[in-house]
């Protein structure tokens, strides 16, 4: 589904990703772990199409298509979803209006008929239950006045509505208490299907107790230095990242 080959990218002339290679197949959950500044959020941003980054080398193929020249909205319509680390507040834009517009754009791109207001609200109601999200929040402007936990839950709620093929969760666990973390993880798990894939980007192992990955990759200084199964996350939890900082980069294949 996703083939990242020798990807290099940076910002303002400073290279952050330095030849990253990673392969994700449908049905898989991959965790990307790494210390601060290793390039985790850069990877998420590059995949979602954030304009701040300059691609200096390598390729990204998504379902056979070249992902990098695609606009952010075209990536989303093709099924790429980024759960933001810091969801932005957008005063004046109603949450429901926003989500309905996004939902119908994605439907259109998949050749499905748009849903009218009534059917859309029924769908929304179902999905808010999944994330235990207060439906009243959806009458407010996007993320405005939401607590940190509500913002993160809202990201996964949007994911539940949009049903992406490739979900990228960027530090979704940060700022969540343990109860909220369980709810969010349960939501993500319920959305897992054989035809979609999830990339979980996190600093801590904690989230991976609840979203169990098939593969764990360690990102250090813009390269994947080690890959393994879910037990690698536990090892990182007990040993920290220090022991990996000087090692040679791996090839990104578990």
């Amino acid at each position, binding site marked *: 589904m996703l083939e990242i080959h020798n990807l290099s990218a940076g910002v303002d002339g400073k290279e952050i990703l330095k030849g990253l290679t990673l392969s994700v197949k449908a049905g898989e959950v991959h965790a990307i772990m790494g210390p601060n500044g290793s390039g985790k959020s850069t990877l998420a941003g590059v995949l979602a199409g954030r*304009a701040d980054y300059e691609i200096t080398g390598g390729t990204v193929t998504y379902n056979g298509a070249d992902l990098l020249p695609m606009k952010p909205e075209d*990536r989303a319509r093709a099924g790429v979803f980024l759960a933001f680390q810091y969801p932005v507040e*957008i005063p*004046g*834009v109603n949450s429901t209006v*926003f989500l309905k517009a996004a939902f119908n754009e994605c439907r259109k*791109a998949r050749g499905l008929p748009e849903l009218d207001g009534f059917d859309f609200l029924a769908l929304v109601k179902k999905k808010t239950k999944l994330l235990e999200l207060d439906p009243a929040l959806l009458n407010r402007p996007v993320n405005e006045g939401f607590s940190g936990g509500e913002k993160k839950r809202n990201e996964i709620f949007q994911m539940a509505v949009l049903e992406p093929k490739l979900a990228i969760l960027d530090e979704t666990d940060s700022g969540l208490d343990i109860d909220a973390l369980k709810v969010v993880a349960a939501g993500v798990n319920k959305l897992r299907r054989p035809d979609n894939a999830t990339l979980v980007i996190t600093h801590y192992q904690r989230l991976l107790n609840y979203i169990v990955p098939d593969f764990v990759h360690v990102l250090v200084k813009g390269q994947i230095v080690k890959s393994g199964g879910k037990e690698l996350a536990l090892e990182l939890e007990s040993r920290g990242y220090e022991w990996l900082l000087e090692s040679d980069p791996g090839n990104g294949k578990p």
Partner: protein
Amino acid sequence: MTDTLTSTPARDPLAAALGAFALHPADNPPWLESLREAARQQMGETGFPDTHQEDWRFTNVAPLLELPLHSAKQNGRLVTLRDIEPFRLAKDGHCLVFVDGAFRHDLSSLPGAPGLEAASLRALMAGGGRELDKHLARHAAVAGNFFAALNTAFFVDGAFVFVADGVTVEQPVQLLYVAASDRPGATVHARNLIVAQKGAALKVMETYASLTPAPHVTNAVTELVLAAGARVEHGRLQNENERAFHFATVQAAQERDSHWVSHSIVTGARLARNQIQTRLDGEGAEAILNGLYLGRGEQLIDHHTVVDHVQPHCESHEFYHGILANRSRGVFNGKIFVRPDAQKTNAKQTNRNLLLSDEAVIDTKPQLEIFADDVKCTHGATIGQLNEEAMFYLRSRGIGAAHARRMLIHAFASDVVGRITIPALREQLDRLLTERFECAAM
């Protein structure tokens, strides 16, 4: 369009224009003559505005004199009900229609309501009713305001709206001014007087529009009188063609516990200068000044507001939002006076601006003069571009760039739109915003 001028280089263009505005004797009832004379004198003392005057530093009106100014007369197309329908707030509501400055009974609709009088000023002036003598040209100062003086000296017609003691008029009253003359320089000095007696409540909406592509001129003055406890929501939607010149003076006089909401929505004219002013002259009076200006092309949109706190325990809240594209320019100058007696004043002013291009310019300036010591006054101005992070967020969910941009522009304007309680006006405005930014390039 400068042919008239170049062919008569010896004549002062302003003097020529003033000659062309000369009134018919019937437009000059004796009781008004002294006011007109004072206004003419004041024009001489104030002088035609130039950019050396502090109040006109950023707004050069010299191009106005390049037009062959003359009193507008209907000389172009015949205006029908169908022509004005798009500008009407409601099909069957109160609407006084003026075409090229002249009241058109046949196009107006006046269903009438108990305690409400809404009529052409010209028809009433000859008689000079009680309220007319008392209020007309008594509130909008002509000293220092050239265009208000010009209007007072030469206005021919306009609207008189009167609501009696304790009466609430539910339906908004619309005053619709349509320019139809195809001759460049056709000028209308529109004059409105709105009187709400004790405890009366009224919504009144002025609309200015063009049915002609010619560069025409509107010079409007509206005086509003709010007696004790009166509540008036007053809107102005100026959507004239982008070659027009528009000058507006709005002056409210507020007595005790009165409540005035003003909306100044400006999307039209090549040059629009708006002077929106209120005098809070009774304890417990409150004013909300709401403004939205949308500039594009080479438009220049100028708002000068004055909130004059004369008496104690009054409140004023001012919110002006501007969205400027291309090479358009905005000017915002917000004056708040707090007089020595006006203790416990609460005055708040914000001006927010969204610049959609690198060449758009806003000159914004708050001006607070406070002579009382126990007051709360705040002001703030912001200038910014569309939030890139918000743009990316919307796009990352599948919403196209143009659509996302429109959503954010709408959102920026929604604060101001949200304060309007006339649903039909909000709908008009939403449509206008959508049309304006539908095709905006990225």
